[in-house]
């Protein structure tokens, strides 16, 4: 029998693409798409019998309870894929924390006592990992996490949500799957690198050219789709097709890279943020602009069957 899937964050670009991928997958039954916006504002889905869209504030536990023990139970939802998380590093405060962390915790706790839900998939982020000179370049799932109290809320929230899901593995009756996805180089995904590349001139610290790995929207959706069907729980890195140095990334995006002293980077990008309203924070990315960090996707390949296959559609030459 085909399984029903509930998707949170369905009104964000990745969530929307994922819902479409599920609808195209004949082995998936009903799809319950949950977003924060009303349907008419959310996404131009064509009339699809297998799709139900609901606008739910996930920070309100009562609303989440009603969602899970109402429509989700009635539709026979077996898998919850949680992708809803604040998209911008500029978003801070209690409300953002409630969305990023408390909503994840509440959702997971309710799923654990749900009569039909068997699998909980958390779309997590490579930003949870620590990147520094004395750590391996190839980042496995056991790589140290960024637990610095000085990390920005964007990172701390993601680490907390990720760890909460990991802690419940084995204790929970659910099959819990955590996908630590490389940075999705696409608009509307909260990608710091995408915002960085928005400028025609990209500054980078002189003398450093670290290796990066970036993921396409198509591949992250494919990894999440595979996670819906996986029979094992665990943490899986989801790398992208493109592994390249920062300088080449800038060049392939059609931008001009100008190396500047590292000490200039923070104030220059702070001014850019303040004057132009950009999201990119150099302080948040300083280490990965110095030291290489590339996700190791071997576990996802062997267990999920995921291999990155969709390169970034680089707009620049070369």
């Amino acid at each position, binding site marked *: 029998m085909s399984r029903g899937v509930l998707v949170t964050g369905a009104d964000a670009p990745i969530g929307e693409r994922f819902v479409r991928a599920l609808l195209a997958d004949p082995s998936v039954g009903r799809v319950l798409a949950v977003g924060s916006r009303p349907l008419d504002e959310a996404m131009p889905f064509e009339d699809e019998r297998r799709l139900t869209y609901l606008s739910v504030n996930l920070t309100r536990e009562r609303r989440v309870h009603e969602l899970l023990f109402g429509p989700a139970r009635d539709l026979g939802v077996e898998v919850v894929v949680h992708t809803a998380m604040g998209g911008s590093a500029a978003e801070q405060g209690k409300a953002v924390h409630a969305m990023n962390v408390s909503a994840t915790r509440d959702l997971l706790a309710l799923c654990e006592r749900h009569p039909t839900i068997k699998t909980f998939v958390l779309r997590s982020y490579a930003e949870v990992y620590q990147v520094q*000179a*004395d750590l391996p370049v*190839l980042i496995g799932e056991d790589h140290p996490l960024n637990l610095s109290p000085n990390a920005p809320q964007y990172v701390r929230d993601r680490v907390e949500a990720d760890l909460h899901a990991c802690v419940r593995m084995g204790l929970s009756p659910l099959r819990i799957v955590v996908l630590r996805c490389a940075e999705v180089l696409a608009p509307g995904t909260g990608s710091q690198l995408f915002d960085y590349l928005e400028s025609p001139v990209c500054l980078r*610290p002189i003398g*450093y050219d670290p290796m990066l790995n970036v993921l396409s929207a198509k591949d992250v959706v494919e990894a999440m789709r595979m996670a819906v069907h996986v029979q094992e729980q665990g943490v899986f890195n989801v790398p992208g*097709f493109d592994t*390249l140095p920062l300088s*080449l990334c800038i060049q392939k995006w059609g931008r001009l890279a100008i190396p500047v002293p590292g000490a200039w980077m923070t104030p220059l990008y702070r001014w850019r943020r303040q004057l132009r309203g950009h999201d990119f924070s150099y302080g948040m990315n300083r280490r990965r602009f110095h030291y290489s960090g590339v996700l190791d996707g071997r576990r996802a390949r062997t267990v999920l069957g995921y291999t990155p296959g969709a390169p970034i559609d680089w707009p620049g030459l*070369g």
Partner: protein
Amino acid sequence: MSLSLDLARLFAERVLPAEEVERLKGLRYADAGHGYDAFGLHPDMVKLGEALLGPVYDKYFRVTSYGCAEAIPVTGPAVIAPNHSGALPIDGAMIWLDVLRHTSPPRIARAVADHFVPMLPLIGTFFARGGMVGGSRGNARTLLEAGELLLIFPEGVPGISKAFKDRYRLQDWRVGHVELAIRHGAPVIPVGVVGPEEQMPQVGRIPIQFAGAPFIPVTVPPFPMPVHYHIHYGAPIRTDRDYRPEHADDPAAVREAAARVKAAVQALLDKGVAERPGIFA
């Protein structure tokens, strides 16, 4: 293709003999998709490295190599374990080039550097393009699993910063290289490098951290002298055959294997020093 890579390739093809450029086309590495491996190695930068280091190797240090082709396996994981000396890691660069030149198809000795090296601007990046990796266990493990050739200096920083009076006396010999070799079924190739121990006699050190380096060495003269390098490769120590992978967790077995490697390196040094006609000859 980036401008720097284009320039690197053009320069290398202009400087290197045509047959060497052709031979280097046989370089094997794990291209992660854009011409670089995951650690940042790029074959054009390897060619540039040979083009830049070639005159230093041939003319300045007049390197003589003994037994490289016989000792280095054609394929598969292996660990090169030499003595370390000379205030600057020129011995590592010379071994890197020596292995590149004397292996067929050419192999890249992936130098495992101390943690501070990747932190050095320009140098860290340039070395990474030539195959160096930071000294974390995870990096070494990944490379050995991929069948690569590692270059590990078991003496570490205490070796390169040893006092002149301690030349050709191996310092505290760490055991990580044999532990990795045993765990991953790789032989260890002992190497004795004669020459660099006298290239920059160290007379003191300034205890100031500079660019991540733990101190600034005081040497006389402040530049490397044109000593004659002799690189002696010993018979591989078959840590892949003499030990089982579970021995990597046996401290006694690991210490014994490390002692075998240290003794082999010391023997190569003693022989090399005794047989050379002179420091500069």
